[in-house]
């Protein structure tokens, strides 16, 4: 494995205490074009990030000393805004909300498809804004007339507060923090429910319909949420940090 960014490949720190996982994932990501540095605990992960200034970081939540969530908190407290993907495990739905609250750029539930990790990693690196806080770590967002207070979980269109169910709010949050990305129904279902729910993707369609009603969005000429036929949805408005 490389020990710097001498060859132009994106540098990624992969932190998980299970050697069976890192010894298989690291070569997989290396072959896919990343320079991977492995940490078996939180302290090593923090050291590697400080020393290497990597392009991205994959953190297992259930690592020893300190755990992945604490590593993420310390990185953000240091003003390090590199993209972070959390590998979550216990109490999926609770874990998920926390991952979003604490500014992870994305998360995957174990056991995940490694190709899915690759896709997420490429997506967060593409979305990264070097030196700037990612939208997923911002307390407030704005897209045109639409404003969201992510901490209070409230949203306004112009001056009118939107009345949304908790799941619709979660969906809006995820779409806005991942704006301009094609989100498959399956992925959104996992966001809403924490796992591939057998309800099928109608549950997603129903929540998107709820959001569109609240936003007064026309699916034929969308201002906010576009349907990508046969694939999923995309938040099409430009999203920026709101103060």
């Amino acid at each position, binding site marked *: 494995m490389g020990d710097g960014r001498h060859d132009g490949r994106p540098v990624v720190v992969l932190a998980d205490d299970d050697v*069976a996982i890192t010894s298989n994932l690291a070569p997989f990501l290396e*072959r896919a074009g990343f320079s991977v540095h492995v940490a078996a605990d939180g302290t090593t992960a923090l050291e590697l990030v400080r020393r290497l200034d990597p392009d991205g970081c994959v953190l297992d939540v259930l690592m020893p000393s300190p755990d992945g969530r604490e590593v993420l908190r310390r990185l953000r407290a240091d003003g390090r805004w590199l993209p972070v993907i959390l590998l979550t495990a216990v*109490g999926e739905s609770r874990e998920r909300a926390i991952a979003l609250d604490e500014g992870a750029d994305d998360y995957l539930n174990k056991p995940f498809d490694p190709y899915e990790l690759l896709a997420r990693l490429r997506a967060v690196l593409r979305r990264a804004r070097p030196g700037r806080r990612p939208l997923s770590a911002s307390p407030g967002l704005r897209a045109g007339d639409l404003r969201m207070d992510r901490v209070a979980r409230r949203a306004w269109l112009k001056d009118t507060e939107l009345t949304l169910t908790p799941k619709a709010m979660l969906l809006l949050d995820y779409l806005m923090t991942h704006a301009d990305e094609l989100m498959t129904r399956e992925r959104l279902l996992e966001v809403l429910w924490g*796992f591939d729910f057998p309800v099928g993707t*109608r549950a997603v369609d129903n929540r998107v319909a709820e959001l569109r009603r609240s936003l007064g969005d026309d699916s034929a000429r969308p201002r906010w949420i576009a349907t990508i036929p046969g694939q999923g949805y995309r938040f099409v408005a430009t999203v920026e940090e709101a103060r």
Partner: protein
Amino acid sequence: MNGPGRAAWAGLLAPVLAGAIACVVLEITGPGLRLYAATSPGLAAAIAGLLGGAMTAGVLGARRHADRAAARAAAAALAAAAATAAQDRLRFLARLDHELKNPLTAIRAGLANLEQATGMRACSGPAPGDEGGAALASVSAQADRITRLVSDLRKLADLEAQALETAPVDLPGLLAEVAEAVGDLPGASQRSIRVTVPQAPWPLPPIEGDRDLLFVAVQNLAGNAIKFSAPGDTVEIRASEDGEALLIEVADTGIGIPGDEIGQVWEELARGRAARSLPGTGIGLALVRVITARHGGRVAIRSRHGQGTVVSLWLPLPAGPGAAADVAGSRQRGDSTGKAVA
């Protein structure tokens, strides 16, 4: 095979072995899960307490108020023990899920690694005569199967614990949507699928519930009805209310369930003989039971082998203006009993 190739195979061996162990664990814990519920120490203690209490009451000459007190105490002990058993089971599911997650993640990463090393993705299928590729595809499919099983078990544990997001649910709309969704399943076009909801004397009132979850429950039942029936069979999805509860039924003229299997259908991982050749993890009816229970309702199943099956879900009707109706009935003696659970 060259050096890196051999290394990749060796790298795969460890997680595959772990996978084999995971399979064995699952094979053992499949029936064990039921055994566990049946032999929970808390429940056993309570049953002993119940018997002891009943015997004591008999010895004391059975004064009526003493009997009632004993019965109340015994019922309370049994309820407390059932709650403890349910907690034990949840903890067990969480641990099992947790212990299988990392080995499964490693197996899938190992497989992806190997696919990359050999320049092949298992899902694209091996070339004819490629034995290594065929083995890889097979191991990959089995890893996916265990992943599904683990995720299904997690769903159950999650459902029992997480808060419901309730809102008024328009049941006729939901049932129509279920019929439409299962209409896409294999073989559905060869079944006659009917949805019946009453219009007279008044339409069904909306119920308070989590629409997504209720959808999952009814969809599971309708999916089963299609799966366990043949072309030309009928599937009926119907709803009614009797002033106290709302009843949803999914009935079919399919193959039915053998008498010796019907007692186990609500348990997780239970799969009847007819189901073994069909895809699925045996979690569907357990999911239906948990979802109904979370809504304060109960479920029951009646079946005749070779004739068909009907599953009934009773959900409480919301109280309030508009729900009440003037009632007069004649008194009847006796009651009917059904196999209801949850």
